[in-house]
């Protein structure tokens, strides 16, 4: 059983991972987009000032510059809010980075509605859909701060080409340890179960676990899988869950179109069709509010996940 160690923003895990990479690999460089501290790139900047370059509020340029640095043999990290890195500069990411298959690592910060009071403009909810549609791109969406550190390191040590690393702003439960190995492309079975499976990503993995622990008490045995790599997705773990539990619920802080739910459904419709319930943003923009208020309003808490599972189990019987 996973227990809460602390509350910690996943962006801090990104900053720690990037700094750790800087210590190990002299080719790693980082670019600033005016929100350097906000996306925790200041950890790297302070440790390696000669390998940090400020490029201001110009995301399209930053992605192209990162491609150029990679052509020169560097491993650049281009990090800003996900709404900008994945959406504002998509064409640069597509052509200059992905078509050239360059080792640019893109930080997608402030993912999801848990950004809170800043509101819809700054809440990245379509970034997974867009990034995973690009050939050559690896898409990572770790579940807590500790795993975000490992994912950031893995984006260089396990991925030769471009990678998008998604993380959030708010402090969220930190529950994994660095002993839990991070293998790009491998889903993690966090809890066994035979009645239904929750496939979750990002900090909704914690909510999924809490829902599963609650349902255990009602004798509903829920499996929980953490998909920290949206692309390439771990087909086997998903197909096995569909075969063994027959019902799948996906949970993500992202639009239900094009994100984790779609990725899981794409696997199952081809390999082992079962009913899939997708929990996420229902084709809508977020709004201002406290993160917990928004998670509540848009149905992304453990209680909501448990409710949906109860409904599905009733239908199953």
């Amino acid at each position, binding site marked *: 059983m996973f227990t809460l160690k602390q509350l910690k923003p996943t962006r801090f895990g990104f900053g720690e991972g990037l700094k750790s990479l800087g210590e190990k690999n002299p080719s790693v*460089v980082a670019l600033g987009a005016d929100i350097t501290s906000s996306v925790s790139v200041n950890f790297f900047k302070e440790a390696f000032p*000669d*390998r940090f*370059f400020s*490029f*201001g509020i*110009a995301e*399209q*340029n*930053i*992605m*192209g*510059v*990162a*491609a*150029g*640095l*990679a*052509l*020169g*043999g*560097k491993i*650049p990290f281009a990090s800003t809010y996900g709404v900008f890195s994945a959406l504002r500069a998509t*064409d*640069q990411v*597509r*052509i*200059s980075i992905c*078509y*050239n*298959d360059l080792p640019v690592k893109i930080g997608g910060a402030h993912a999801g509605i848990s950004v809170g009071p800043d509101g819809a403009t700054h809440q990245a909810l379509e970034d997974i859909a867009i990034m995973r549609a690009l050939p050559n791109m690896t898409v990572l969406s770790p579940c807590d701060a500790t795993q975000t550190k490992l994912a950031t390191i893995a984006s260089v040590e396990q991925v030769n080409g471009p990678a998008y690393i998604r993380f959030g702003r708010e402090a969220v439960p930190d529950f994994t340890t660095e002993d839990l190995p991070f293998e790009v492309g491998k889903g993690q079975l966090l809890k066994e179960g035979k009645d239904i499976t929750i496939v979750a990503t990002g900090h909704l993995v914690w909510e999924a676990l809490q829902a599963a622990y609650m349902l255990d008490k009602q004798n509903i045995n829920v499996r929980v899988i953490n998909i920290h790599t949206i692309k390439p997705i771990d087909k086997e773990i998903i197909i096995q869950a569909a075969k063994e539990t027959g019902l799948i619920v996906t949970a993500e802080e992202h639009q239900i179109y094009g994100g984790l739910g779609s990725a899981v459904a794409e696997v199952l419709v081809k390999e082992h069709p079962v009913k899939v319930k997708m929990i996420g943003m229902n084709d809508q923009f977020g709004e201002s509010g406290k993160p917990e208020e928004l998670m509540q309003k848009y149905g992304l808490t453990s209680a909501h996940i448990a409710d949906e599972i109860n409904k599905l189990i009733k239908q199953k019987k």
Partner: protein
Amino acid sequence: MPETNTIEELKKISLEIRKDVTRSLAEAGSGHLGGSLGLADIFTCLYFNILNHNPEKPDWDERDRLILSIGHVAPVFYSALAHSGYFKRSELMTLRKLGSRLQGHPGKEHGLPGIELSAGSLGQGLSVAVGLALSGKMDQETWNVFSIHGDGELQEGAIWEAAMSASHHQLNNLVALIDRNYVQIDGKNSDVMEIEPLKAKFESFGWKVMACNGHDHKDIITTYQKAINWKKGPVAIIAKTHMGKGVKSIEDDYGWHGKPPKPEQVDAFIKELEQNQ
């Protein structure tokens, strides 16, 4: 290393490049003739005088880097590469065909030697050139980055983001050439979207601006040499050219931006090229 060529030799190479551009586009049945003919003299000077490069070793570490931002003029780029010896000239006739290494816009993954960057979506190449130049400076490399842009391309906002950053980071190993032919697909730049005052724009973004006649080999080479020796920051060369240069009947006609010659026009065009060299 570049060979030393006399101006007369360079002119002959430019003519051959123009002929290959014309033939390969007619064979392809689609593509961009106007800009490719317009840039033939500049590409000749680059590949036969300015650039440090080695067609035998396309990945030679010390080579100068050429970033072609306007990928649609691929025919003149490919022709210059073939004439330099990167691959056989006969391969030029596979342009734009299924399975060819000569993609409609340069695509490295298809394996053609001599391509630094797969590109063609306008407005991206200057950013990549900035990143590459920054990488070179970090490592105290001696090579330079030469990027090639269209004048219409300067309407892309990202170009100016990149321009701002090149001077901010004092990239004195970057020379961007603007193919100033005054036209684009919809018509004259000044009708579509005015880009003047161009010199003042680049200067206000912190660049040194130089000008040359993009069809005068001596002027092109002298200007590039001055640009390379300018060590205070990035340099923009505004090279005045004529779209479709060499074929009088199509010169400066923006209708020829994205059109290939018809097969029955090839002989007449080549005759004109030979007469007008």
